[in-house]
């Protein structure tokens, strides 16, 4: 979706919605009846100022013609939307110290659904580094695109990454943030992105 940018003559694209396909995030850019496929394949995760930063390749496939791949694109986590669905199980074989305890009811008082460690991320909002020049003929200004990465998981790898990204969020921005926990989770994420 877009609005007219004041600085350049092209319309500014504000957001691209992506869904997971393995470790990759895939979506579309539309203009009239034309559709460009958008893929972001992160290959490395790190923290900068306690925020997740994914680095990888963006590939844009035009309706007609050759796809264009841009390497070294970063996607920095801005914020998240909490999910209202049960989180997946922790990845099998993961170090037990990385798994936070499930929420327990105190004195028989009810818990709130999908809250605390019983929650997970619904959407990660990531800022893409600027994509400039002619990007596979996309008719928009792509200098400040926000990726709305909906983490709806359907495969094992997607479920594992959803769990790991969610735990990393708690480790970096949750009430009990913890550097060692975050480092361990990052290592697990990187193992999966490198595959």
């Amino acid at each position, binding site marked *: 979706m877009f609005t007219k940018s004041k600085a350049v003559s092209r319309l500014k694209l504000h957001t691209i919605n992506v869904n997971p396909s393995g470790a990759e995030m895939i979506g579309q850019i539309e203009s009239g009846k034309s559709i460009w496929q958008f893929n972001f394949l992160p290959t490395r995760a790190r923290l900068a100022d306690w925020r997740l930063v994914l680095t990888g390749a963006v590939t844009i496939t035009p309706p007609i013609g050759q796809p264009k791949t841009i390497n070294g694109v970063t996607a920095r986590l*801005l914020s998240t939307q909490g999910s209202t669905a049960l989180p997946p199980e922790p990845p099998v074989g993961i170090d037990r110290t990385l798994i936070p305890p499930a929420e327990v009811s105190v004195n028989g008082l009810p818990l709130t659904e999908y809250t605390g460690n019983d929650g997970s991320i619904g959407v990660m909002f990531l800022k893409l580094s600027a994509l400039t020049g002619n990007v596979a003929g996309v008719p928009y200004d792509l200098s400040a695109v926000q990726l709305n990465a909906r983490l709806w998981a359907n495969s094992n790898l997607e479920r594992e990454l959803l769990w790991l990204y969610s735990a990393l969020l708690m480790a970096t921005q949750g009430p009990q943030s913890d550097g060692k926990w975050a480092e361990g989770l990052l290592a697990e994420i990187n193992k999966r992105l490198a595959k």
Partner: protein
Amino acid sequence: MQSIQAAMKPASAKKKYDAIIIGSGASGGMAAKELTERGFEVLVLEAGPMIDPLRDFNMNKFAYESMYRGLWRPGQKQTEQWMQDTAGEFSSHFYVKDTENPYTTDPGKPFTWVRARIVGGKTLHWGRLSWRFSDLDFKAASQDGFDVDWPIDYKEIAPYYDKAEEWIGVSGNRDGLWWQPDGNYLPPMALTCGDQILKSATEKLGWKLIQPRVAMLTQVKDHHRKHGRAQCHYCGSCGNGCSVGAMFNSLSSTLPAAAVTGKMTLRPNSIVRHITVDQNTGKAKGVAVVDRVTRQEIEFIGKVVIVAGSTLESTRLLLNSTSDAHPKGLGNSSGVLGRYLVDHFGGTGASGYLPMLAGRDPVNEDGKSSGIFVPRFRNLDARTKHPKYLRGYGFEGGASIGSFPGNARRTPGFGKEFKKTVRRWYVAPVSLTTRANMLSRFENYVEIDPDGVVDAWGIPVLKIHIQHSENEREMGRDAAESATEILKKAGAVEIRTQNVMTAPGRIIHELGTARMGNDPKTSVLNKYNQSHDVKNVFVTDGAAFVGAANQNPTLTILALTIRACEYLTEEMKRGNI
């Protein structure tokens, strides 16, 4: 509908409208009716599209007519409308797409924000329950010392409840409960056989069970007929859109009334980005709009701006309307804008089966679609005081047969025996679910996302910070226990006590964040929904609420809107605006 089509004439960027109304839902629709009937020339700006009732209202659709049997294309809900909890395959077009309308939350503290962006707003598919608040609610702080009272009392608002009920048409009984005040009702619907069993059990415990008061026409009056509204035929599909106008929605009721005055211009697909301000006076000048379809940026001007975009959209709009005169958001000199967010909570309760109804012949019991209501019975007075928490809750629910045998999911086995068991118990379900008062707390709030997240049109989104406190948890536990007690008393079997509270937002009664009050230092609006800081801005929706009570809020929103419009008219006449 024809009259509304006629109101969709081109809006003029040059004209100074008497009032610009943002939103066409419950509050915006009522404001349009009230102001046009008082002679105002109004421009109604609605972010969503216009609807075609013949195409878009699906009350006559059955699951078998869809390839997906009413369950959506696999994955569709989870990738497009995952937060639109109550949206179904036949009603999804009434709801926003979460892909275009994001918001953010704190880690581990989700909020379900259900929204409509369409002419008519959430009234196109709302649950229609229409309760009055009482002084138990308006003056709660005086009784238990928590937070502050509303700046109004029941006596002041009662005449406006009368007007709202008369116009929209509410069916129900006069039950004579002082804390659940009566109005003037259309004939009530009947309780089902199972509801009667539940009623006698509840009364044995010393509590009440009443027929819900619902905005559905069980009888048609002249002013309903005039706008083409017909009597309810109990098809039970209100959530998919009522094409005969029997349930109240703005599209069949308030907007046509505004349109026939010839004084309303309705502009769909108009997303208001922010309210513009006259730098000299600090007053609102008009609004900046982006057209949802053409992306054109337009400004409209008006003498008054009525903000009725629904609780959180209205507050987002005010927070996004910063200027030199209003650096923290329009009308936010108090710093309270965005604070005191509440929702009711549910989830806790109990369900089971009534064995005396098992194996009976199926009958159509879900047509009336209103169930039962157990009004609040805790903390009404010294005798009913609960030692562990303040305020109270009611129960919705009932004992009626639905079209889908939900019990099949919980029935073990397969084959002939399985089908026999499902059939036997399908006709006997019973359940009670809580509708509870969440306390208004300063620390539950919304702000413009500090990390710069935007929506599909580049408009900054809300970050929502909210969680339940011990008071809600204690109330939730008590509600689960009381519901179980009622079911036991009713002789229910296979009772399952539900002891998990819904995530905030899930009951779709988000309220507060631009609260009214007498003190401009601690509130955003005065008692007439008028901004303390900017006299020509009124916020008429649920954002104005001081507390949530435990009753559904829309009737109170409608009554407050009528009252605000009356006050605005008088103030205009007096030259104060």
